[in-house]
């Protein structure tokens, strides 16, 4: 149990985002405390992926502030933000399909220059994801969805991030892999990496999250500790009932 009040690692405050004329975020405010797993729930097209892109600097907000470890991320390029210690597992994984599994994982360490330590980390990934060992020289695009998710997570870990952001990491996976992914997220978090994840599947996400936010057409409509939200009737009605997860 954490006995000191956790300090914020990532904050979004009053973020407003537009695609052309269309507003996607309305005064969005989210805090990820150091060492926590925070989950952003919401239906299709509610603006979840765009939130990820805001954090990573792939989309610029029209107004609002984003800070990481006390410093503003606004105006930084994506590579600069990555170098601050944020790694990502993008929606639909987005592996480099024609590169080998090994190259994909090592691409995760692109910002690092300590070759020996990177090689050691690669070995560590193979103990964490034993299945990938036999697949190292295979084209990443030829793997199954679940295996690709493992590669994407290994790739994100290779930068030794302080925080990982994940966009629907369980989407399209078989139940076996869903459990495995959740377990992994938890163990990643236990070694001190903060996690911000976007999910449609509320029941699964609330299982492992410390806090959660619920996004509805660009507005946060509900937020709080995951344990409390799990029993919240509004969540149950809106998400848990409708979830099709196995």
């Amino acid at each position, binding site marked *: 149990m954490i006995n000191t009040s956790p300090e914020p690692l990532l904050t979004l405050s009053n973020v407003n985002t537009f695609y052309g004329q269309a507003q996607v975020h309305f005064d969005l405010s989210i805090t990820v405390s150091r060492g926590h797993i925070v989950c952003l729930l919401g239906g299709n097209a509610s603006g979840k992926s765009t939130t990820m892109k805001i954090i990573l600097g792939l989309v610029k907000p029209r107004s609002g502030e984003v800070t990481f470890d006390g410093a503003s991320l606004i105006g930084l390029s994506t*590579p600069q933000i990555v170098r601050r210690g944020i790694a*990502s597992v*993008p929606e639909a994984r987005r*592996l*480099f399909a*024609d*590169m080998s599994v090994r*190259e994909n994982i090592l691409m995760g360490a*692109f*910002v690092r220059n300590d070759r020996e330590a990177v090689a050691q980390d690669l070995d560590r990934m193979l103990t964490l994801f034993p299945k990938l060992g036999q697949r190292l020289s295979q084209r990443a695009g030829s793997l199954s969805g679940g295996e690709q998710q493992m590669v994407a997570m290994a790739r994100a870990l290779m930068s030794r991030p302080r925080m990982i952001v994940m966009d629907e990491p369980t989407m399209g996976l078989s139940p076996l892999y869903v459990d495995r992914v959740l377990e992994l997220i938890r163990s990643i978090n236990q070694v001190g990496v903060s996690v911000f994840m976007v999910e449609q599947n509320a029941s699964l996400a609330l299982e492992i999250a410390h806090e959660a936010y619920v996004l509805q057409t660009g507005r946060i409509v509900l937020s709080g500790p995951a344990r409390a939200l799990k029993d919240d009737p509004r969540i149950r009605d809106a998400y848990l009932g409708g979830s099709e997860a196995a």
Partner: protein
Amino acid sequence: MSSWLDYTINGLIVGNVYALVAVGLALIFGVSRLINFAQGSIYLVGAYIGWVAVVRLHTPLPLTIIVVAAAAAVVGLIIERFGLRPLQNSVRIAPLLATIGISFVLDQLVMLTFSPNPRALPSQLPDVRFQLGGGTIGPLDLLIAGVGLTSALLLFVFLRYTKLGWAVRATAQDRDAAMQMGVDVNRVNQAVFGIAAALGGVSGMLVGMYYNQIDTAMSLQATLKGVVAEVVGGAGNVPGAVIGSLLLGLVESYGVAILGTSYRNLFAFLLLVVVLVLRPNGLFVSARQAPPEPLTGTFVAPSRPVHIPRLVLLVAVAGFALLPLFPVSFYVLQTLINAWLLGMLALSLTLVAGTMGQVSLGHAALLAIGAYTSALLSLTLAVPTGLAVIGGGLMSAALGTLLISPSFRLRGHYVSIATLAIGEIVSLVILNWESVTRGPIGISGIPPLSLFGYDLISPSSVYWFSLAVMVVLALLQGRLLSSHLGRSFRAIRDDDIAARAYGLSLNRYKSLAFIFGGFAAGISGGIAAHLYSYINHETFNTQQSILALTVVILGGLGNVVGAIAGSVALVGLPELFRIAAEYRILIYGIVLLLLVRFRPQGLLGTI
């Protein structure tokens, strides 16, 4: 007597040269989905730097190669940094247009610096030939093969074993994901432009030595051949570009062996069109691979067109119509006649490229078809020239649409490549179809314009005639655009998938646009033929296609009044300021660059 082995060797050597250009194009396309039309200009620059090094500085061969590669790389880096990086958030077609502008500027700068006359570029190698089976091979062949293989090896090592090389490959596969790994995409772009330029420059130098001659016409040819090889191999596919190049070299070499030199380019462009139509992703794309991102996105920057009151237009037309009644010089009328003729071409292109979103780079071919038809009708069949011009318009509408129709299913940049190739094919057919077109001699003694038996010889009568024709075409086009048809055109331009979902037949609407556009351009070409009284296969060339494109962008894509205003501006202003002819193309290139960068919606706004 050359043996088949000789043709094979020649094909492979030439293929090697193409490969040096095409690999650069493939690298650039891979990371930025851009067809770099300035690649041939860098090749040209490389050839001339080689000339300076060899003839003036007397550098030894290895040093020459290094100097050329380094200097060309610097040019490439400058293009990337100042020409393209500022356009990162522009519409898709903007970088492509920028590379066209850059290539004009570079070619003209080379021409102004070194004069347009060809120069000899000595090879610095002994002139001996070795027997090899039934053929022969010389030291220069070996040098070219050696440079090709060495470059391929270096490139392989770079892409496979260096960090930056990995970044290039990752960016080519997924730009956003690469950025999320911390890859600085600007550095990747820099790297590929530098490499592409170094390879392209060396290639130009080697070709200069191979033929012992360099001249500024090399540029466009190299771009075209490189693009053919790259698309044949699959856009963005580096090994594919090498194989595509060797294939192209062999096809050309054997084609020349069978039919003669003047057919060389015809084979290249026919190969391109066949591949574009049948396998737009290239010959070597495996089935499981998704096609490269569709190159959609027109150049039509969102804007509110400038509203010009009808009265102002009426006054302007009346003013121009009354002009010959005042004591103006013949020179002024002549200039404006040229503007009206260009205006008709611009009307055609603004419809096709602006309203319909098919950015054609081969529009001069429509002029050529109209001109040849009208000239031949009046000369060989004694058709009155007034009717012959209309015949030219109809032929251009029919033939132009027919020729372009195989590429209706293409989108974005591919349309531009296909139209460019089709334009070249038309010019090459004119060159080679001697029994009808009189081949390289051209057609002379074309009778002057006449209307109802009266010859239009005086400058004012020609002026009125061309102004009247242009105004009629403009009015027709204005009606067309405000009709249901015009709305359908724009719907297809803005989102062809949605348009198809609403039941619009893309082929039918694209045909209609090209029929109307072909007619207007054909009329312009027809009139021009009777004014010039002599035409040949080079009268209507790519430069005019690009000039027309600059005009319509200047006026505002899709904007009828803008097309005409743009023509008057681009034809008239250089005359007004008495700019020497050799600087004009340079200025057109600069105008194009500035427009793309600062005012993509043109002066009067896109519609």
